[in-house]
């Protein structure tokens, strides 16, 4: 499935660019209200990419009893790391975003950010073995678990008094 999707990449680039533009300008799900402000200023991403990365990271680590990746600002971190890092990973990531939107458009006639939650999850399940998923997941895990929210999530059960951890406790 992945291979077929990759082959479709070029077709999407040529054929569907109007849809992309339309999708970007179109109002968010729920209709008429203007999209909520991004709240941070991307260095690398355009606004559409930034919102796509926000929703992607939040699908990977959603809020539960503790905040998820979007609230933890992981997209902003990814934007910074890729912008200031070497070109290889940066370009692969940007291409991957486009590729994912192509899949989303083909499957659901909307770019990834405009897809419903269950559609986004289905898309991620579909690409789980792809290099792009590896990359976005690694970056999300790195960004989330180094954030204050992520560390609080890890330490939800408390932190011991000693690293030694006596046997009796197990």
């Amino acid at each position: 499935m992945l291979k077929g999707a990759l082959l479709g990449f070029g077709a999407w680039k040529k054929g569907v660019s109007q849809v992309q533009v339309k999708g970007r300008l179109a109002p968010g799900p729920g209709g008429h209200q203007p999209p909520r402000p991004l709240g941070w200023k991307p260095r690398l991403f355009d606004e559409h990419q930034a919102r796509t990365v926000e929703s992607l990271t939040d699908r990977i680590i959603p809020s539960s009893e503790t905040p998820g990746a979007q609230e933890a600002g992981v997209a902003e971190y990814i934007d910074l790391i890729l912008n200031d890092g070497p070109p290889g990973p940066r370009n692969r990531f940007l291409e991957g975003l486009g590729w994912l939107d192509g899949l989303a458009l083909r499957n659901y006639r909307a770019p990834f950010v405009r897809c419903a939650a269950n559609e986004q999850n289905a898309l991620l399940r579909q690409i789980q073995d792809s290099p792009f998923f590896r990359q976005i997941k690694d970056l999300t895990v790195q960004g989330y678990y180094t954030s204050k929210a992520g560390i609080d999530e890890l330490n939800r059960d408390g932190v011991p008094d000693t690293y030694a951890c006596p046997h009796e406790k197990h």
Partner: protein
Amino acid sequence: MQIIARGNDVFDAIVVGSGCTGGWAAKKLTEAGMKVALLEAGSKVTPRDFTEHVEPYQLKYRGHSPRIAERRPIQSKVYACRESNYHWFVDDIENPYTTPDDKPFYWIRMRVLGGRSLSWGRQSYRMSDLDFKAASHDGYGEDWPICYADLRPYYEEVERYVGISGQAEGLPQLPDSVFLPPMEMTCGERVLRDAVKKKMGRTVTIGRVAVLTRPHNGRAACHYCGPCEQGCITYSYFASLFTTIKDALATGRLTLLTDAVVSHLVVDKATGKAAGVAYIERKTRAAREVRAKVVVLCASTLESTRILLNSAPGGLANSSGTLGHYLMDHIYRGGATGELAMLKAHPWYGPPRRPNGIYIPRFRNVDRAMTNGFIRGYGYQGWSRPEFAFDAPGFGAGFKRAVREKSRWVIGLGLWAECLARWENYVEIDPDRMDAWGIPVLRIHMNWSDNELRLYEDGRQQAAEMLEAAGAKNIQLYGDEPSVPGFCIHEVGTARMSADPKKGVVNGFCQAHDVKNLFITDGACWVSIACQNPTLTMMAITARASDYIIDRYRKREL
């Protein structure tokens, strides 16, 4: 022609380098009444530069800076070179060295007051006569001209001052230090210790480490915050700048010259003795000179040898022709990992973090010369602790839960093996390259011999067997490729000791055979490398050489 500014003072001694060894020379000589100039290529550091308590989210890249490698492609490979302290490590572009294409070498250097003591791993082990007299044990190479009994009082002096925490085990091949209380083992480590003792008769002990487990010599006990590589505002681990150098400054007899990059020694043509050193001011690039009656090189193994090679055609103090030869480092980065499924894991992030692991002393070739075609041996550093399952598959709420719920108790052992002293592993001056200060750089030639590779492979297999004995599951060998030479940061040799002036550069007191007021007390003087971490022994050797210098200087014999 360079215009050299010469200071008027003539010091009793110059010490080049302020790291683990230079700090000891400066302390001992000044406390004995000598007027000392300490020249350090790096800049001053104060506790305000320490970042061990900074959380990842307080750093721009949260500890994953993609920028460090731009100017530090070699240094950034080291775990200790981090977003908040990378500027302590040399700029590789300004400080190049060369190697043949097929012999990569990673040379890890810190140019800062305190040198690598600021970010070292603090593991501290004595050597024994199995090491100092290794050639007599198995017939390979040369014995040291000194023995354990010569060094023992200096080990004690250094340990009493530094503070080494550890557990006495009474092993002849790994003599006990004067210990502060040991740190505790984790339960996984205790499982390993008990099983390996019972089933294989081998000792697993807590790491011996230059970290205080109780207040000591005016410094506070460690509070287990963890990232010692970034500094320590409570001075709880050993670094020269807040111990030996502080003491030397307190005598009022130390002149500390930072940002002073020594290029070569100045030799008195009439006497053949060292008259002082020439250096470049790092920031202004002005060429200067300082004069002294004794010169002690503590610039670290390869920097000291580079200074000697740049001091005279063919190298200063090189009538033996051995200067630059017999470079060694430990081969490492291999071992085994596994999981201890019988222990329930409750990992956490952050402190308390024990800045130490466990240690398995050498067991190969202790009572015999050779095993399975190899001589010498290896020791292990290891760890066992609960870990989060960041590698859990999938995404979403299930993944987030799995990171915590699928956490497991992991265990690992990594070997550090001895490397034989071989003539073919050597450094020379590269005639075509200079550093940013116009000083000719080293060309380094080093690779592993079959003996190292056999030790390495045996060590990996034995690691897996010990984990198996401990009941570990999912045991995996790691390190199919061993470390690149140099990367263990235990480089020693290249100006070795010898009783016979034809076989080495310095005598058993680190005094150059050819230049009697010149001393090389850092790792350059090593004859063989053993398998223990070397720095405790480097400091003991420097302390011993310092006593000799003080004695001969008083007797006007230098």
